[in-house]
């Protein structure tokens, strides 16, 4: 069995943040994989909720969905519901955790998936919010998962698609965002939290192999570094095995399905 890849470190660390009995609204990609992994390992009563209308799906290893709207994301669900209703459960306060990815994130945890550069003349037009804005506005605790690169971790996002702490807790309160609370950012290098007073990102713990210096270097803004920084336990063999089985399936599965299922 090979050593854990960066994405695997990130996904496994993310899965550990989910507790049994919670309801998690997971975005496509790594958040979805982390949620499914948690349910298969330490949180059997975790309810996974996906944007396309699935409540409580059980994925087929090797056939993870590419989108959260397709049959593969619906297999074994206890409830299939309209999309507006699915989001209104969030707005009602039914979801403990909202778990999303990010193209660009700033020191207050604001997420941009809309424009790189000036929105009126963008360098890159990104795909858009999808459900991310809704998730961060309404799920009780918000976790963001993304690769740790300076181009992703910027001083200030070009566009606030999905608010984090905005410019701090006071502005967040003024904006009326009282239903949700950004709590963590998981990367392949670290677990970041937020300083309560300022709403700024803070280095809480290092992934195996990372150092404070490597994290600071990969962060495009001044990351708060407390005196004591924790260390995340390395992936257990069971975690790695189960994640790879989820992604790759059993050897008989068609090659095409496996390839797609393990795409970034």
């Amino acid at each position: 069995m090979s050593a854990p890849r960066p994405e695997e470190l990130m996904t496994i660390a993310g899965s550990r943040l989910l507790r049994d009995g919670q309801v998690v609204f997971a975005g496509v990609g790594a958040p979805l994989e982390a949620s499914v992994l948690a349910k298969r390992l330490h949180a059997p009563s975790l309810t996974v909720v996906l944007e396309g209308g699935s409540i409580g799906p059980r994925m087929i290893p090797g056939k993870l969905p590419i989108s959260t709207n397709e049959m593969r994301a619906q297999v074994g669900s206890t409830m299939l519901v309209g999309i507006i209703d699915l989001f209104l459960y969030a707005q009602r306060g039914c979801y403990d955790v909202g778990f999303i990815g990010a193209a660009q994130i700033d020191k207050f945890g604001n997420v941009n998936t809309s424009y790189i550069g000036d929105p009126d003349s963008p360098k890159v037009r990104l795909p858009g919010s999808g459900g991310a804005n809704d998730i961060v506005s309404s799920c009780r605790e918000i976790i963001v998962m993304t690769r740790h690169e300076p181009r992703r971790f910027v001083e200030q996002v070009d566009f606030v698609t999905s608010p984090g702490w905005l410019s701090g807790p006071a502005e967040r309160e003024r904006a009326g965002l009282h239903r949700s609370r950004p709590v963590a950012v998981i990367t392949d290098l670290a677990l970041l939290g937020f300083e309560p007073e300022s709403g700024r990102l803070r280095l809480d713990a290092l992934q195996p192999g990372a150092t404070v210096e490597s994290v600071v270097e990969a962060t495009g803004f001044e990351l708060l570094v407390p005196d004591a920084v924790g260390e995340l336990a390395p992936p257990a063999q069971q975690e790695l095995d189960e994640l790879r089985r989820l992604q790759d399936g059993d050897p008989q599965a068609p090659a095409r399905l496996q390839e797609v299922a393990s795409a970034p």
Partner: protein
Amino acid sequence: MDKRMGLAEAAGLVADGDTVVGGGCLYSRPPYAMLFELLRAGRRDLVLARNLMCYEAELFLVRGAAAKLMTSWVGIGLPWGIPRVFREFAERDPSIYEEWSHLSFGLRFLAGSMGMPFLPTASLLGSDVLKRTPAQEMRCPFTGELLVAVPACQPDVALIHAHRVDPEGNAQVEGPVYMDLEFARAAKTVIVTAEEVVSPEAIARSADRTVIPGFLVDAVVEVPFGSYPGECYGLYEADFAHFDKYVELVNSGGAGGVEEYLRRHLDEAGDFAGLLDLVGASALLEQRRRARELVAA
């Protein structure tokens, strides 16, 4: 009243410049047969709306069939990257993409479907998305809570692909309904394509599964595999290899690649049945086998 007709006749219910919303979600139960027919009919300057928009964004932009996209996300899926031609259009003129969050997009149609001019939400608060939409902040008249009011959308036409429908338009779907109910009830004209047209008696046998009542519907078209290359719950999986080939064309040829795709799959195929012939029976049956395998799991 018998509302059955062919795709071409149904396309006649859509006028240039209309706001047209398509049901399903991304490549799940999309109304592709009808969307392709609008391209074939040469419709122009539509506002094309879907809650998550798949590769039709590029097909419509390149042909000039859509002047504007209204959605919350554009792309096929993470493995295929950000659509290159979409980027070219949207970076040249950002106003062609009216971006909403997924829920606020849906609430526009829910409001329209309730006959209300607006609905309140907690989405968009504090975001820059809010600043670039006609949504605006409001306060609850009872509690004073700061909320966002989203204006209703009652599109000219909704295109829905269903599992079955009767000649009057009573339509049923299996699996998730996505936003089909809200789209159909909000729209002024509703075109339902379906895998099969059945009798009203067959619909009445499971009346609690009917999601669109006939009185909303203007046209009924039977189109087996009408969501191809997308999926239809329980009946066929999406054809990911088809998307692969499309993205290869676009990555090598840009807008020319899109044109190449359209020439082959729309123009030369002649009609939707021709497209299915091009794909081939065995490929379609393989998609069907995969769907059955998933639903049986």
